[in-house]
């Protein structure tokens, strides 16, 4: 998956499991950027009576690096809390929930949003880095943007949440400075054929060519009826760039921002008995995500948990897995005679390093760059001077000649699985070595999926209301 349950430890901790990150220039407000980070993956819609929610013991952060040093100069930090109206009922709601302050809604969730600025905002409330770096006392500036902001309920069914779209829209809050924010349940926008992917990297449309073949078939969208919890924030571009203006020159270094997100837990939790917990100590990062599939597909099993604890500035140690990705070696084995050129490609994959770790420098793709410098760091890199493509955007993003999409940031509908598969299979290697001829299949790889329109909406927060638990799964 993108990063759903991607590492052994975080797979046991859904509330902190960072599943997807999106960063794009807002199509309907092109003077803003929308940043979305998702948690609590793979929600089965009827999963009550304790429906899904953010962790009130988790610190959620979205980070922005706007000077290419691999460290965030800005972060938006989200703290959640729960309020229970009546602890003497087992019910999530005691009647239809018609509004966010409905007296029939028993267990509600609220949150605060804080903007943090400084040389390295990962230091906000955190422990010394696991890598042994000296932990200097941070000089950070914090600004509370909003508190007591209501989340919508989970989408239970037509009796409990009869007008869900209105509930969801009511949970879009306006903050000072032209910022919008939303936090709550949504339909997962990430589409993937999980069943085939994890069955020895099968691609159903090409499985007749697999080492263990069967008839070619259409892809199966495993997440189309599953929900997720999204934190979405829409911010004027001028509040994110290093020179505090909305750039117009695509080639300007000020035009590119690096984006990722993370989740942290308190360093110590003590179970006191009788259902009581105590927590103490600094926040310690347990999950992070920049590029989709980075930790999932690139980082080896034995390093995934540690990767989650580190920050992008420490990613140089993982560059070798990008330069020589395991999947690039597996494809020629699993699809015999399909990838002969890839099988012979032994050089370090500078194309993948650019896509995933540094951004693509100018001069590689005409009229495009999202280069942030030489510091290798897993971040989504978004050139905010590139306007959104509102007419016929390509789900293949830059590979589909649509520079407004992945790997220039990531939109909710981008087919990141196919894009990364194609890149790893060698389709992008000619960008750095024109003498290389990709295998014919490299540029055609796909899981055979297209995003269903009902997963998205045209306005903030762009991910559609969640599937309801009464109708999904259908009988």
């Amino acid at each position, binding site marked *: 998956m993108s990063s759903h349950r991607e590492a052994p430890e975080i797979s046991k901790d859904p509330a902190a499991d960072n599943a997807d990150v999106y960063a794009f220039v807002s199509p309907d407000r092109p003077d803003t950027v929308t940043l979305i980070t998702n948690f609590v993956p793979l929600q089965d819609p009827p999963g009550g009576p304790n429906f899904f929610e953010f962790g009130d013991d988790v610190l959620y952060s979205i980070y922005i690096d706007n000077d290419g040093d691999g460290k965030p100069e800005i972060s938006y930090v989200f703290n959640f809390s729960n*309020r*229970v109206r009546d*602890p003497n009922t087992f019910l999530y709601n005691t009647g239809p929930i018609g509004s966010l302050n409905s007296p029939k809604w028993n267990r509600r969730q609220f949150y605060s949003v804080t903007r943090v600025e400084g040389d390295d905002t990962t230091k906000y409330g955190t*422990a*010394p880095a696991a890598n042994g770096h000296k*932990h200097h006392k941070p000089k950070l500036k914090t600004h509370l943007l909003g508190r007591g902001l209501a989340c919508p309920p989970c989408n239970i069914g037509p009796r409990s949440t009869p007008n869900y779209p209105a509930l969801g829209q009511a949970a879009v809050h306006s903050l000072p400075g032209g910022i919008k924010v939303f936090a709550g349940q949504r339909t997962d926008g990430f589409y993937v054929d999980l069943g085939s992917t994890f069955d020895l990297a099968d691609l159903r449309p090409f499985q007749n060519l697999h080492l263990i073949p069967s008839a070619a078939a259409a892809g199966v969208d495993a997440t189309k009826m599953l929900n997720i919890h999204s934190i979405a924030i829409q911010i004027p571009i001028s509040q994110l760039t290093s020179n505090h203006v909305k750039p117009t020159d695509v080639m300007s270094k000020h035009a590119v921002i690096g984006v990722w997100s993370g989740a942290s837990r308190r360093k110590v939790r003590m179970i006191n008995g009788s259902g009581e917990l*105590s927590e103490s100590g*600094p926040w310690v990062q347990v999950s992070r995500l920049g590029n989709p599939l980075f930790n999932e597909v690139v980082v080896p099993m034995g390093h995934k948990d540690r990767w989650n604890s580190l920050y992008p500035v420490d990613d140089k140690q993982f560059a070798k897995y990008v330069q020589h990705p395991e999947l690039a070696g597996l494809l020629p084995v699993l699809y015999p005679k399909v990838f002969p050129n890839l099988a012979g490609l032994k050089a370090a994959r500078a194309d993948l390093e650019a896509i995933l770790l540094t951004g693509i420098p100018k001069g590689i793709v005409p009229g495009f760059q999202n280069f942030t410098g030489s510091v290798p760091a897993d971040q989504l890199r978004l050139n905010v001077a590139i306007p959104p493509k509102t007419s016929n955007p390509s789900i293949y993003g830059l590979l589909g000649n649509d520079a407004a999409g992945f790997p220039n940031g990531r939109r909710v509908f981008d087919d990141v699985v196919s894009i990364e598969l194609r890149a790893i299979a060698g389709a992008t290697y000619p960008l750095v070595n024109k003498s290389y001829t990709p295998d014919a299949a490299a540029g055609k790889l796909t899981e055979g999926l297209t995003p269903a329109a009902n997963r998205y909406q045209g306005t903030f927060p762009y991910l559609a209301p969640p599937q309801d638990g009464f109708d999904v799964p259908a009988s």
Partner: protein
Amino acid sequence: MDERKGVDRRSFIKTSAGVAAGAAGIAAGAAAITRAEQGGLGGAVTSEMLEPTGSAPKEPIMAYVHDARRGEVTVLAGTSETTYRDPDLAKRLVSAATRRLTGGSDVIAP
């Protein structure tokens, strides 16, 4: 039920922590830190602050022996984590820990 009288997890944690550690415990911990900053968690040996991090303590104070060989004890309070070098205290804690290894919880009067 009045929402303001409802239960939220944070207040529940805070309340339970208060029961578990007690105001005296927190006060004692704060006093211990003050003593440590003035010259010794254990009293006999000067404590050296090694890695200061966050802000003032508001929650239950927890401590563990970070490195027995080096005599380092780490104190967690609020979002702060401070490691002190106090060989005497570390030695006494290790001694207390190894006195009974049968599992379970015991309170042993000094």
